[in-house]
């Protein structure tokens, strides 16, 4: 398994290379540049600015220079946010984004699996029906609708929690964005869990466990859950990607100082190095988490063997 993990790690390198290349050239093919403004700069000054950032060199040379700097984890300077390097900006924004994302995934697993199991245990009951309808709402109402609604009802009408900002990391500011980000995932995980739990509860080994006279709690938690959780584990990869993209919107709506906010602004401002940096960070995260999920799968499911 270790050799499998290592091999997978090695294959992420060409993938990352493709991502960097595509992102780099796509940004540069765009009309408009980072220093376009309504007031035209004198040509000499513009030339100097471009030279300062190596933007006057041929595109291929810039690309090679960029690759060389990436190797030593230098993302270059931000073109728009003066005096900050992309590395510093990402380091400043990442903690908030990570906290949002991981809390959302954790919530999704906790509530999704619990609700799904409850629904499956009381199949076709009122509990089942209400969990499934609520989760359908969670899937059909996108988070950019849910988020403003949450902040309107809880933040404005009921005045319980602040509607935006990060408050320097105060917990009260984090609740709404995390909940808004987690809701669709909770819904999805609940549906997945219910589906596979219903199937597993009808299987022979569960019947055996019950026949042995195990308490229902043990049957469900020890035996059934282990089988039923597999689809949820394999959904973790796509879930991470969904949470990361979702966090771009959630950060914008709630004014969270994370890297998602940077990404949108940087793309609109043609801040090439910042866009590339954020894309690379997200890509690496997604790939690492996918690897982790695959390994977790092998640990949980004895039928899966990686050689």
């Amino acid at each position, binding site marked *: 398994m270790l050799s499998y993990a290592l091999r997978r790690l090695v294959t992420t390198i060409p*993938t990352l290379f493709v991502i960097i290349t595509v992102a780099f050239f*796509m940004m540069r093919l765009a009309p408009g540049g980072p220093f376009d403004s309504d007031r035209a700069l004198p040509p000499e000054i513009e030339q100097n600015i471009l030279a300062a950032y190596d933007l006057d060199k041929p595109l291929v040379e810039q690309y090679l220079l960029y690759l060389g700097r990436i190797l030593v984890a230098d993302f270059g300077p931000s073109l728009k946010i003066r005096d900050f390097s992309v590395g510093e900006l990402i380091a400043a924004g990442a903690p908030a984004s990570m906290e949002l994302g991981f809390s959302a995934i954790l919530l999704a697993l906790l509530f999704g699996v619990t609700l799904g199991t409850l629904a499956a245990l009381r199949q076709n009951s009122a509990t089942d029906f209400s969990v499934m309808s609520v989760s359908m709402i969670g899937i*059909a109402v*996108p988070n950019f609708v849910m988020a403003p609604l949450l902040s309107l009802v809880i933040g404005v009408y009921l005045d319980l929690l602040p509607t935006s900002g990060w408050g320097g990391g105060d917990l009260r500011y984090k609740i709404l964005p995390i909940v808004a980000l987690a809701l669709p995932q909770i819904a999805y995980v609940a549906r997945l869990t219910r589906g596979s739990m219903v199937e597993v509860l009808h299987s022979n080994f569960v019947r055996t466990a019950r026949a042995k006279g195990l308490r229902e709690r043990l049957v469900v938690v020890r035996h059934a859950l282990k089988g039923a959780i597999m689809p949820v584990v394999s959904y973790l990869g796509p879930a991470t990607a969904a949470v990361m993209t979702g966090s771009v919107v959630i950060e914008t709506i709630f004014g969270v100082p994370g890297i998602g906010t940077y990404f*949108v602004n940087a793309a609109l401002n043609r801040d090439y190095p910042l*866009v590339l940096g954020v894309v690379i960070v997200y*890509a690496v995260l*997604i*790939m690492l988490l996918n690897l982790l999920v695959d390994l977790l799968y092998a640990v949980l499911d004895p039928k899966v063997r990686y050689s």
Partner: protein
Amino acid sequence: MIHTTAGSDGLARVEEFEGRSLWQNARARLFRNKAAVASLVILAVIAVLAVFAPLLSPHAYDEIYWDRMQQPPDFANAHWFGTDNVGRDLFVRILYGARVSLAVGLLATTVSLVIGVTYGAVAGFLGGVVDNIMMRIVDVLYSLPFMFFVIMLMVVFGRNIFLIFVALGAVEWLTMARIVRGQTISVKRKEFIEAAHAGGVSNTKIIFRHVIPNVLGPVIVYMTLTIPQVILTESFLSFLGLGVQEPLTSWGVLISEGAKVMEFAPWMLFFPAVFLATTLFAFNFIGDGLRDALDPKDR
């Protein structure tokens, strides 16, 4: 379907019944599913409203009433859903938004369908090294943060509605390719494919005439689930300000405008959100219904 009955002479006789095809069965099962039928009706209503939008209201979608900005629903002036920030009728704008959202949903899904089905069928049918390489490419593409590329694409090439179709279609074909490949591999071992080979039919013809029609079931199910996905993604882009351009609108744009003023004009958020959510609901229910109808497992 072959059925054995005892004849009047006491001997077993084989009678032939008129067989019901998979599709007839599926249709019957789908129409027994109340949620799916209700969803079909709702979608049809929204589609008809969108098509006949200009006939349904006295207002044009881009007509600005300077004296009626951010008016709540007002029946005297036929602003059934109120007006927006610059005094345009919200009802008509939502229906024009429906046109954009539904068109994006259908066209982008078609793009993904064409790419995904062809790619998957070719990979599954040819097998071997070609299959290996083609699916490896899909694996690599899967691990890309696609949304970010779509956002970059929109920024780079401007807010072009045709680009939205193509970009979203190009993003959504991966799962389709995987499903079709899996189906193709199981279909290609069947006798009728062998017969076609023996009859000297070319590979291309076998793929398009014999393989693809036989993998359509799961493809249709997945397609119904892709449409809401695409509509959602388009709204997401519009919400970020990367969608269609003014004065044209889409549900995502309307929701984004509504979200900004929800404290003073909640109807501007409420009505487009209801339309979007209802549509997504309906497509999801139809997809679930189709899956149940076409799944041979619980026949």
